[in-house]
């Protein structure tokens, strides 16, 4: 009985003699230098992709600024406050266009915010569980429809509807506000506001839904335990807690409304004028660029249009940054609980 020896059956097990060859695992040390190089190369490629995203945004800013240089130089700050848009004499003032953008976006918000908040509340709180995915999908369908199809529907369905049925009622009952004067030709600020409202509904509704689902369940339960009715619970526990995020959703919708091009171009009437009545045609930053860019008369005209694009870019950048910050501060980047 000398030293203990492994039993012959276990001396060199099958596993030791034939180690399993896994597909990716290197079996010897010879390729280490190669794999270090490959690691560095892969990391560089991936970093290059990420840097290119930043570079693209930088390029966009650069191109906008250089191409609008002549107009910036010639008009300076007065570009934003003058009202004359005259390509023939190369006099460009963007005030009517900025006014049109603001009015159409605000009208869209006024129509869309109550509806989308109601939808968000309905889908998350009131609706039976089985219907939730279906309704959420329907709202998302609204977001999936391309802008040009909204415009097509707007021209041939919405505008006649507004002109024949809605405008007379508005003029009769709400004409005292001064917002509904003049003849309604159909293509108007009102039509643009309604179409924009339909287009931003899904965005506001879906982010509001995410924010509402991020409110802790204890808040709702506490309110109900104190004897609140359903609506009181929604108002006190849910909406009040989520109000920062809902505000962020609204601002995000505003950003989207300001940048919307095709649907607005097709129904707004494309007249750069400032008018109190919502029945009058107007123009927005994006619609003017879309209409006049291809037929721009002279380089100053193109430069002025690019300057409009720069204004649009800066405004939507500001609005989106505010919105992202507001939404982030509520959800802290956490994904919403999956109820649907």
């Amino acid at each position, binding site marked *: 009985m000398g030293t203990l020896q492994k039993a012959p059956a276990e001396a060199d097990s099958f596993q030791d003699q034939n180690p399993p060859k896994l597909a*990716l695992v*290197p079996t010897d040390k010879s390729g280490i230098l190669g*794999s270090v190089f490959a*690691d560095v190369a*892969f990391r560089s*490629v*991936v*970093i290059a*992709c*990420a840097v*290119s*995203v930043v570079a*693209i*945004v930088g*390029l*966009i800013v650069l*191109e906008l600024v*250089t191409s609008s240089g002549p107009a910036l130089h010639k008009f300076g700050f007065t570009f934003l406050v003058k009202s004359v848009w005259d390509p023939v004499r190369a006099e460009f003032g963007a005030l009517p266009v900025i006014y049109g953008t603001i009015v159409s976006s605000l009208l869209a918000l006024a129509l869309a915010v109550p*509806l*989308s*908040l*109601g*939808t968000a*509340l309905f889908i998350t709180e009131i609706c039976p569980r089985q219907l939730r995915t279906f309704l*959420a*999908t329907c*709202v*998302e*369908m*609204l*977001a*999936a*429809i*391309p802008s*040009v*199809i909204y*415009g*097509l*529907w707007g021209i041939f*369905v919405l505008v006649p509807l507004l002109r024949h049925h809605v405008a007379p009622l508005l003029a009769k009952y709400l004409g005292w506000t001064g917002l509904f004067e003049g003849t309604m030709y159909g293509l108007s600020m009102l039509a643009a506001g309604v179409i924009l409202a339909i287009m931003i509904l*899904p965005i506001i509704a*879906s*982010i509001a839904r*995410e*924010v509402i689902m991020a409110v802790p369940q204890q808040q709702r339960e506490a309110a109900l335990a104190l004897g609140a009715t*359903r*609506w009181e619970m929604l108002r006190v526990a849910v909406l009040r807690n989520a109000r920062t995020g809902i505000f962020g959703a609204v601002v995000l919708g505003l950003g989207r409304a300001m940048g919307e*091009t*095709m649907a607005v171009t*097709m129904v707004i009437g494309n007249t750069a004028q400032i008018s109190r009545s919502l029945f009058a045609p107007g123009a927005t930053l*994006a619609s003017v*660029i879309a209409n006049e*860019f*291809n037929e721009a008369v002279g380089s100053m005209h193109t430069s002025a*249009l*690019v300057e409009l*694009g720069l204004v649009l*870019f800066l405004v939507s950048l500001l609005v*989106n940054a505010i919105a992202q910050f507001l939404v982030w501060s509520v959800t802290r980047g956490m994904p919403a609980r999956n109820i*649907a």
Partner: protein
Amino acid sequence: MVNALAVAAVSLAALIVLTPLVMILGTVIAHGMAGLHWSFFTQIPKPTGETGGGMANAIVGSVMILLVASAIGIPLGVGAGIFLAEYGRNVYGNIVRFTSDVLNGIPSIVIGITAYALVVLKQGHFSLLAGGVALGIMMIPTVCRTTEEVLLMVPQSIREGALGLGIPQWRTTVSVVVRTATSGIVTSIMLAFARVAGETAPLLFTALGSTFWTWKLSEQAAAMPLQIYQYSITAYDDLIQQAWTGAMVLIAMIIGTVIFVRFVTNRGMLKGAR
């Protein structure tokens, strides 16, 4: 009482929101069906004044532009997503993430202006390539954000297991992590397609549209949404009819894609639509 009114108001709001959806889809299908002939898919537009013709060149043009767009958007988007998920949990990652969100929020017409300045002015003529570049830039943020999300859902233990077996870092990422997340990345690419396929504004002054067969990168190109826009503002009934049919085909493709993706993965086009 207030409670009942409020609940009723909220329910009514949801109902009102569904109405435009039903109206739009219904109108597009009702008007579009009338023009759905075989010639729509096989013929190019006839000269103005003649009836007949189709949007075949627009369909081919759209496919070509989307191919160019994906050649730009997919590699850059997936690469940036991999960076954010694997190497980007630091301040540089936050910068890239913020920039990607900025890029997502830029109005599409501004991106069209940039593509005009970058490609059309340098080339000296309008082209399919310029349109593809514009749409590719628009695809990047969607693909990047969703790729990052999907890669972050791969459990850390898989990465650790692979590294523990001696697989190099780059091989882990490529063959283990990304392969686990492939279906998510594919669906994110499909969603980016669905979004970008309907965009018109960037193509207005890059691809410019055309009434002939177009597939060369350096020529003007027709695209479906662009052709729909150009027909819808004309005064000819048969062109407007073709616009409706084109709208129906476009909506069918886009909504089909979105429903398919939602059905398979429960991921939506909007961030909050899970």
